[in-house]
Structures are given as C-alpha cells and as structure tokens.
C-alpha cells in the first residue's frame, strides 16, 4: 500500500513536517517495495485552503494513510471522504517513521505511539 509522510526536506534523513497543509514535501512511500518518492507541495503558497489542497493531493496520489504532525479540520474532512487513514503527532526522520510503520508500531490512529 501507499502512504504519505509530510517532510521538511526531500531526503530520508529529513524530519517529519508537523504541518499538513503547508508541509514542504510529501514523501510517497510504497510500503511493499519501500520505494520513496518526494513530491514538492505546491500548496505551501496557497492563499487559502492549503489543507484542502494537500488533502486532495494525497487522495490523488492514491495513498491509504497519511502520517504527519497535525491535520486541520477542513483537510481532515477531505481525507476522511477520501478514506485515507490519518496518524497525527508523528515525529522523527522519514526513515525511522517508515521503519516504525512497517513494523506496525504506529499505534492508534490519533498518533499516540
């Protein structure tokens, strides 16, 4: 399955971006092959509705889960409609988050590990 992690930079050593709507990059991870693709978030500079735009992007990328710091109420509505699971309160580097996710250590969906 595909998951999206919000990232502050386009490398595996980058930290998780705590913002969902205005994160710098989306790390699109294929959890079976462990391939990672970094996609720049064009919604960073949206004048309004950055969260909505990001939610739409995540759905368009066909991700089934998103791992990030905090998702606002509007983006949440978009993600829920798109049946994307949301893990909030995620910290650490992209590499460690992928590791944890693959080992099923993500805990509950509100992100408390």
């Amino acid at each position, binding site marked *: 399955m595909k998951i999206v992690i919000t990232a502050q930079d386009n490398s595996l050593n980058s930290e998780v971006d705590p913002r969902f709507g205005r994160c710098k990059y989306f790390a699109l991870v294929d959890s079976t092959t462990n391939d990672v693709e970094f996609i720049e978030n064009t*919604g960073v500079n*949206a*004048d*309004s*509705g*950055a969260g*909505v*735009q990001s*939610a*739409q992007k995540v*759905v368009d990328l066909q991700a089934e889960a998103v791992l990030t710091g905090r998702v606002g109420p*509007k983006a949440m*509505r*978009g993600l829920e*409609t*798109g*049946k994307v699971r949301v893990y909030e309160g995620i910290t650490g580097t992209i590499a460690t988050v992928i590791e944890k996710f693959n080992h099923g250590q993500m805990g509950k969906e509100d992100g408390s590990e």
Partner: protein
Amino acid sequence: MGVNSNLTIVVASGKGGTGKTTIATNLARALSREDGDLRIPQEMIQLIDCDVEEPNSHLFLRPELLERKEVYISIPEVDGEKCIQCARCSEFCVYNALAYIKGSILIFPELCHGCGGCSFICPAHAISESQRIIGWIDQGKIGKMEFLQGELKIGTPLAPPIIKQLKEAIDQDKLTIIDAPPGTSCSVVSSLYGADYVILVTEPTPFGLNDLKLAYEVVQKMQIPCGVVINRADLLSSGGDISVEDFCREMDIPILLRIPFNREYASCYARGDLLVDQFPDLQKAFIQLFMAVCANKEGMN
C-alpha cells in the same frame, strides 16, 4: 462658517483602543442633542458601526434595536446527479473552497468568497448557489437618530461583505458618522470608501504615532481629507511625547481636538456612559470638533 449637515464622516485609527468608538458615539450624541446649538434634526443623523469584529458603539448609545437582518454570501451546492466529475470547479477555485475527492465534490463554505465562478464554468450546470450566513446587520433608533451596526459571525473571516452591505444604508442627505474598524486592512478600506472626511484618533505615544502614520497613509492613498483627534493628550507625567503633534504639523494635518486624560472620563467610559452626557465642557468640545471638520472640509473645496 457653514455647517455641512450631509457629510459622511468616518472615525478611524491605525491602532485599537485609542478612543475611536468614544469619538464616534460622543460626536453623534453631541450633534443629536435637541437642545444643542446646531439644531440638526435627529432624524437627519445616522451612526453606522462598521467595526464588525468588535461592534461596541451600541454599548454606549444603547439604541432600541428594531430589526436584525442576516448577511449572506452565496456558496456553491453541487447536484450529485448532474455532476459529470470533471473537477473543473475545484481546479478553478483559487480559494480551494471545492475539492474533488474520489468522485465527488466536497465544499468548504468557510473558504468561499462567493465569486460565483464555479457555477458559471460548470459544463453540466450541476452547481447552484445557496446562502451562507456570515453575519448580521442590526437597525435601530436612538431617539430619532438612526443606528446601524454589523456583526461578524464568530469564526467567519469575511468582514468586507458585511461592511459593504452596511454602507448601502448611507443616506446622502443625512449626516452620517461611521465607526470604522482599527488598522489598515481591507475592512478599513471598505469602511472608508466614499467618505467625505476622516477623523483619525490617536494618542501621544510612540505606538500612537506609528499607527497614526499607517492610518494616514491609507487616507492619503484614498484621497480623503482628514484631521486628527489626540486622545489622552496629556497622558505622560514626565516630559510628554510631542512627536504626534510634530508629525501633524509636518504633514499639515489639522489637529481638530485634544482630549486630556482624566480618571473621571476613564471611569465614565468604563461604565459605558457617554462623556458628553456627563461633562458639559466636552459637549461643547464635540460640537467644536464638528465645526472644525466642516471648516476644514470647506477649506479643501
């Protein structure tokens, strides 16, 4: 000296808390006094509170509120049956108020500015418009004086449409006093549009000066004549700050009135009472303020 009794006067300030509402409400009361010197009929005066985020004039004027109208903007509604899932509406919307998610269009009314673009461009005519409340307009009377105020619904970030609608009530034949929101934002510009004169309220501190400069810039850009009221004019115990006075002299902005700081004034305000009702000197001062505005405006023409 002529009295111009159909002006639209906006009371504004770069900074909140300088006494904008005090000036607007006391001016309205001073002018509407039946036994006053000017004898402008009460029914020929209107006070409009455009500070829709924090409308406070009513606390002092205590109008009898007669009517409350809802203010709407148009927001889209998608007919799922007709929608052909082309997603053009969500691509068009610069505010991201529509999103195309897994075959359906989600609408985020909080983000919509009501431009009508989505319903216009929809090739399947699947989008109609419904109304969303963004605030209210209250209409009332203080004696025979007309009172209007706008109130922004909490959590709604759209003040200008309410202000625009409020200002449709301006009667060009009447003397209109507008209590503007503080600052220099779009709401302030909406309030200033079409004004004949602006009274800028400030206080003699570096904060007051900084914010007066900002407000003056707005008024200059909109080419509206203005004058300054310095509130708490003697606030400083030590030395005093004369930079506001210097700035006005330098820019050739008339100082229309100076109100000293006075604990009795402050507690009168704190209770929600009007200064001109309690202090006869101030009643006179506010009439003079109005005369100064008229004289200044006349001098410009």
